[in-house]
């Protein structure tokens, strides 16, 4: 251990204190904890919770490493102060609870949950620097992180990315299995960084897809199994020439997208200090915030253990059910989806032109050109748990979901900017503000959920709960009664109600329940 690390310190006090009662039992060991950190702390021996350490890492980065004064992930304990400014009535809100900078928080959550984060934004805004910091947090020396970082470029080959067969073996080997491969070191790291991934040629992108998607690399029938890791990719849209279209499957593997916001000129002093004092933050990361492999494993388990209450799950279900449904895409009920139309290559304008009868301004599904995949929903749940964990909560709140949702869906939910919603003058800005639009979309879905009073009146929820209790002991009479209830509910919904996405999902679920009871009834009758 380097001695200079001994007293590099991070916040000793709780970074997000909760109003827990003071302990009645005191520990005399606390006497020796305080403003001066002791050598043993630098060895990683620490009894603090991992989420506290994660917050310390976040605050160290925000306060020391990255000059990022944007607190765009806003939490409020009470009504926040807000001000309206300018001709366009821009609203500035001063959050009343601990709020965060997405540019630092999302990478930290990605690091903790071992997912994949894409930094976007113009050149020189700290995208690569942030990614390097994540590597250092995982315990790698800065030099190693820099060397392991893969820089996308138009000549990048699969060998550049994954490794080479040993030349001597290529000459002498009698069988392909005898050819040994020199794998690239980055494949074995717990933090993987791909800089400017949109400059990687398409063929090499496919090799990258295998590593990102399936966590292994393959050359000449030899397979390298990669450890579980967090991925950080950067894309520079302003690069000009030399960029490639990123294959869709690769885009789909990215879990969150975070934008590097512009530099605030009021922080020029900090830049000047760094030049004059020749200090690079990534080289001065305090050892107290560096995570061991075991800690990373433990943190992932703790994140998974965070609870998502059923009422929050229902709102996520309701939100996600809005988008896939497309009434005119097919004849058979199950195929009435945007994906059906997309696979058939139907022109989008023609499709929406035929979609009549519904209020296209009110229908949230009309704002998007696609629906949400299973992978996206799983990612949303993971990040909702991760942010709750980061904040020291054991249970996900609605605000947690609301805050992470735009970053998860950023590249996944494609806006139909020709939709009537965007023609409303106050919504026009959402054509360029994807984060704001997604958050608004979630808010609108929640408002609709409340209007329908689904928290209290959810007949399908009751039927589902009944089914979840199991079929053991259910008599023929009872099964028939349940089938009748399902049919009655569908008939009721069919009376003059227009079809919306959430109803479509509910109806398919009712069909599923109906089928399960039908099969069960048949089984009862034959035994």
């Amino acid at each position, binding site marked *: 251990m380097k*001695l*200079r690390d*001994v*007293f*590099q*310190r991070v916040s000793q006090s709780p970074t997000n204190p909760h*109003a827990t*009662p*003071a302990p*009645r039992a*005191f*520990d*005399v060991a*606390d*006497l*020796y*904890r*305080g*403003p*001066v*950190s*002791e*050598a*043993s702390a*630098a060895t990683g021996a620490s009894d603090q919770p991992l989420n506290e350490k994660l917050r310390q890492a976040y605050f160290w980065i925000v306060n*020391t490493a990255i000059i990022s004064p944007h607190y765009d992930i806003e939490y409020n304990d009470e009504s926040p102060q807000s001000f309206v400014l300018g001709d366009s009535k821009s609203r500035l809100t001063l959050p009343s609870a601990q709020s965060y900078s997405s540019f630092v928080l999302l990478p930290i959550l990605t690091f903790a949950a071992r997912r994949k984060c894409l930094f976007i934004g113009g050149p020189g805004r700290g995208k690569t620097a942030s990614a390097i910091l994540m590597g250092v947090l995982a315990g790698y020396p800065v030099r190693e992180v820099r060397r392991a970082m893969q820089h996308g470029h138009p000549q990048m080959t699969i060998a550049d990315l994954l490794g080479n067969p040993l030349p001597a073996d290529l000459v002498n080997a009698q069988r392909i299995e005898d050819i040994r491969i020199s794998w690239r070191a980055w494949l074995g790291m717990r933090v993987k960084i791909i800089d400017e991934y949109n400059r990687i040629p398409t063929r090499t992108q496919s090799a990258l897809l295998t590593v990102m998607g399936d966590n292994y690399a393959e050359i000449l029938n030899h397979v390298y199994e990669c450890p579980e890791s967090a991925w950080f990719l950067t894309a520079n849209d302003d690069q000009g020439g030399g960029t490639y279209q990123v294959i869709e499957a690769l885009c789909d593997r990215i879990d969150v997208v975070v934008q590097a916001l512009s530099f605030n000129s009021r922080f020029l002093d900090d830049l000047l*200090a760094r030049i004059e*004092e*020749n*200090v690079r933050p990534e080289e*001065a990361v305090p050892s107290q915030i560096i995570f061991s492999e075991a800690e990373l494993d433990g943190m992932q388990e703790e994140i998974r253990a965070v609870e998502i209450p059923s009422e929050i799950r229902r709102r996520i279900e309701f939100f996600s059910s809005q988008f896939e449904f497309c009434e005119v895409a097919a004849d058979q009920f199950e195929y009435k989806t945007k994906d059906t139309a997309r696979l058939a290559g139907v022109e989008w304008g023609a499709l929406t032109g035929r979609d009549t009868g519904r209020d296209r301004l009110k229908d949230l599904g009309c704002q998007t050109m696609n629906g949400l995949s299973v992978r996206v929903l799983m990612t949303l749940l993971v990040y909702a748990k991760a942010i709750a964990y980061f904040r020291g909560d054991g249970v996900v709140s609605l605000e947690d979901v609301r805050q992470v949702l735009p970053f998860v869906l950023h590249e996944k939910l494609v806006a139909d900017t020709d939709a009537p919603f965007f023609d409303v003058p106050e919504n026009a800005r959402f054509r360029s503000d994807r984060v704001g639009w997604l958050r608004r979309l979630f808010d609108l879905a929640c408002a609709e959920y409340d209007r329908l009073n689904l928290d209290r009146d959810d007949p399908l929820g009751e039927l589902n709960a009944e089914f979840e209790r199991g079929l053991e002991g259910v008599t023929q009479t009872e099964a028939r009664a349940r089938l009748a209830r399902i049919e009655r509910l569908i008939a009721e919904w069919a009376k003059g109600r227009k079809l919306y996405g959430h109803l479509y999902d509910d109806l398919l679920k009712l069909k599923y329940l109906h089928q399960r009871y039908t099969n069960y009834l048949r089984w009862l009758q034959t035994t």
Partner: protein
Amino acid sequence: MISESFADILRADRDEYNRRFVEARLRYPALTGETFGDFLLRVADGVVAAVCSVRPERGREVASTLYDAALELVGQNLVGASSRNPHIEEGWRTVLPAAAIHLAEAPGRVAAAVSNALHHLTVTPDTRPDQWIRVLALPAAACPDVDTFLRAGQVAAWTSGLAHYRPDALAILDTLPDPVAAAVLDAPSGTDMKELRGLLRDDPWYDPSHPEGGGASAGSGIRVARRAGAFRGFGGLFTEPPRVAAQGNELFVASGGECWLLTADAFGATFHRHGQEGFDTAKQGIMLPASLSVTGSRVRFDGTALDLGQWGSITSSAVAGRTLAVTSSLSHSVTLIALP
């Protein structure tokens, strides 16, 4: 004038030390070379010299560790010419040289422990950091190892006013060699340490430095053992005269919508912020023993009486173990009465 040994060490790793200073400036913008250099010269130099006199081969590592600790302390204005807290600096001058042998063995651990303990004592009202420095410096060299030295420091913190550490400190006391225990307890020479440990365990109001007059059982009557807390305007906690309540052996104090847990014994009294529910729950179970009565401003116990009229009429009272806590209408303090 800086000692030659320290000057040599700093000179040998000059670039590294300069780099650390620059790094620390990023964390502590108010850190100045002048203040930091002054602290190294006036204080750290003496500590390094003390270590070099007993373990010269450890001088370099100790100096490096102290340098970093000093950066943290000066950076946070906890020591140095402009600091309002003289005790940490005094601890460096007195305790660290006295414990040079332990500092040489585990520099980071010992330097941080001494600094943090003094910080802890300094920020806790009504404690005696100067006592901690005095009683720990005496037996430091006699402690056989670093762990014993640090355990002695924990007991000394209790006797210097951190009453909430009483249970832990009593347990640690049993593990200390008798001469070390006697020194940190400030016990008169010739004290029977086994008996003393028993007295301390049995009676929270027993004071070993005053074996004749201390203790709840001293004499047959009741006595005011301590007054704790004060008006916020005078640096205390309370915005209005407090009320007390007890639950089991715990005392709760409420004032102005806030609540604290109060720990108290012969060595001190400390308040710990607590949820209001602590006081509310305790209040419901409030009950004095039959032998004890509180009326007006008087407390009666087994035929003896105490008049607390100077602080007004008694507004609340509670018993926890051998302590009666009372509050009065004209006072922002809690009066703690030792019960026999």
